[in-house]
């Protein structure tokens, strides 16, 4: 939709961590990397739907907490040798505030 959703201050997302928002259709995980890049992905692993928000973040990847599939945060694709893809959403940080578009 054509609007930005104002979410939270960047500080409320732990570095190398994630927070979750519940949208009408799905849970969305908002990640923050060590370099303070922010990404938003659907909170469901392409393997068996594991909550990616609960995984460990390293570089710009997250490792699914259920069976260890690695997902690239920037394009939502599983890292080889795995296959699969999750929806990504546009995000931006302005004046220390995180915005998300869905």
């Amino acid at each position, binding site marked *: 939709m054509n609007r930005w959703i104002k979410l939270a201050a960047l500080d409320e997302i732990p570095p190398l961590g994630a927070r979750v928002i519940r949208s009408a259709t799905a849970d969305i995980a908002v990640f923050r990397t060590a370099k303070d890049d922010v990404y938003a992905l659907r909170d469901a692993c392409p393997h068996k739907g594991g909550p990616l928000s609960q995984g460990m973040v390293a570089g710009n990847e997250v490792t699914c907490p259920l069976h260890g599939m*690695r997902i690239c945060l920037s394009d939502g694709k599983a890292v080889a040798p795995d296959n699969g893809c999750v929806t990504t959403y546009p995000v931006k940080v302005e004046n220390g505030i995180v915005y998300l578009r869905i």
Partner: protein
Amino acid sequence: MEKMKLVMIGNGMAGARTLEELLKLAPGLYEITVFGAESYANYNRILLSQVLSGEQTIRSIMLNDVDWYAEKGITLHLNKPVAKINRAHRTVQTADGEITGYDRLIIATGSTPIILPVPGNDLEGVISFRSIHDVDAMIEASAKFGHAVVIGGGLLGLEAAYGLLSRGMDVTVVHLAEWLMERQLDQAAGRMLQKSLEAKGIKFLLQKQTECILGEGRARAIRFTDGTEIPAELVVMAAGIRPNAALAEAAGIHCNRGIVVNDTMQTYDPRIYAVGECASHRGVSYGLVAPLFEMAKVCANHLAELGIGRYTGSAISTKLKVTGIDLFSAGDFNGGEHAEEIVMHDTASGIYKKLVIKDNKLVGSILYGNTVDGAWYFQLLREGRDIADIRDSLLLGQNHLGNTGHQGENRAAAMPDSMEVCGCNGVTKGCIVKAIKEKGLFTLNDVRKHTKASASCGSCTGLVEQILASTLGGAYTPTPVEKPVCACTDHTHAEVRMAIRKHKLLTIPEVISFMEWSTPDGCASCRPALNYYLISTWPHEAKDDPRSRHINERVHANIQKLGDYSVVPRMWGGVTTPEQLRRIADVADKHQIPAIKVTGGQRIALAGIKKEDLPKVWGDLGMPSGYAYGKSLRSVKTCVGNAFCRFGTQNTLGMGIDLEKAFWGMWAPHKVKLGISGCPRNCSEAAIKDIGVIGVESGWEIYVAGNGGTKTEVAQFFAKVKTQEEVMEHAAAFLELYRQEGYYMERTAQWTQRVGLDYAKKRVVEDESNRKTLHQQLMQALEARKDPWEEFAVKGVEQQEFKVLEILDEVPL
């Protein structure tokens, strides 16, 4: 005096080994020149299978690189096949015309793969499986094409098929005989093998004969004599080998399939020797390295002018190097007349054992599914030992003869010195132990270098490691090349632990930059390990990093398949009260918890709880965390002991509760479970726990390093003590040693297998002052521990973790 000239043709496994042996015996005797047709120096041909399957690299299978030849003063010509031997002039001539004179000549040209004489066998994509060149071609084809057909269901063909399968190809094995590996296996074992390989994804066409290979330029399909066709862009011929005797034959040296040699490896021309697969000794040409290495020894001995060695032929045994398949075959497995067979066939567990006995001697054996006793049977077979006295239990294996029954290093310790460990190189246990002691060897690689054990096909590696462990005790650290922490680094767990201690590294970023990780933040494998190493090495100084913990340990509950959590409160020593049970019931009602379950660890689990609800559930429970999710102390199982049981000898409940209260909240390389029983009937299953304590009339027996999980290990006897204080001290010291020295994800069983139980005993049982120090160190590390549930639920730390983000505002674009 001028040195004699020794020329060798063929630079493969037998040839290079002959030179190694010769240089050991008579280093300066010859001026040596070697001609090899391949472009690589000496490599381990056996491991080409693993290079194909991706488990090894070309670099890792090199035995002697060009530098070795230079160092030894050997002139090495690569890529230079010899075309002719001129015996009258005593010269050899290469294909490009170079002539070199010799005083002694070794022919070690190996064998040539048989290429079936069918139309199309010269198409591109039709290859054999013999050299690095072939493996390169297969790897290349696997990247471009989909269908591979392997002709030949013998050892080589199956390893090729498995390798190509690992490379993602659709693989069919075509075999002429009725079952696979018919020269090594009987029908039953052949069928079992086929089933296991089919389960991995390889297809089979048995009793099929190839008529031709179809294609224009490149192979496209293969047609059989029955008219059927299947697609094949890669055809690997593994239908047998033929001794490569052409050069010798052309020079007029007597050949009969192979180059005929006597017991000192000399051909009919006494200046010329032949070793390896090209030779024919007493009518036999061998196709495995063990006999070739024996030949190399004898030939070297003779060339060194010692003249005492004699080669009298070899008994051979076979193993298949396909990951996950255990297969062993030796001797005459059909037996024939007057032979008796002892057979065990357990279809459910996929185990087949066949022993063939003639005149009270073992003459043949096939093992499938469980091959631990292969070496032992092979020894009985070669020694021709009379087995009448052990016949009843022969099938049960060697362990059954003693009362050990344990895995690992015990087995190595129990082996007699004369028993052969490495079949390829004929190295006995005694030889290895001697080399370890006399030469001061510490690593697997050292042993490989000095004794050759485990340096060829590698299937005895585990056993050699066990011998190292049992000989060295704690001084043994396994080969570093085997365990870098993860793909982010080349450093091993041991190196990382050492650096953290030595340089007092206190944070993960410090370790990552100090040890030059290749990734900025590590990964989900190394970060938890680093976090553990930091907090266990520098308790109270290094800070725990929740972002480097798996979610279970971060939120102190167990994530489940739907993303909700289970909660297992601590019930000290497995003892509960009506009040506690009522509270659990109330919590379950109030929070509508989907399931309550008695766990396998003698406690109660509440399953299916939403993450947001966890703090409230913990608050209402008012019980401490059972750490059922952590690499930490889990449950302490007890039996009722002398409080109620008519056989109970000791107060197990008190002992269990005290131990649990002493160690709760203790992080470790992996989880730790305890069991306390009141008598040897052992109702708390202490015999499969990390620490098992069994009460007896005169005190307590302490067992350690048991495991009831993926790979069951029976706990081993550690110490016998009188008082509860002594149990506490021994248990604490053992655990602290494990905490300080174990590798992350290594349970006590694997850890003690690696360092040797004797080592742990030395540090804990035999050294009282060290025991007390370790005990104290653990207690200090555990000072100020806090119950995580209380922190979250009552003190309200980290609330953010359990809350979802709310939408603050919506802004149109």
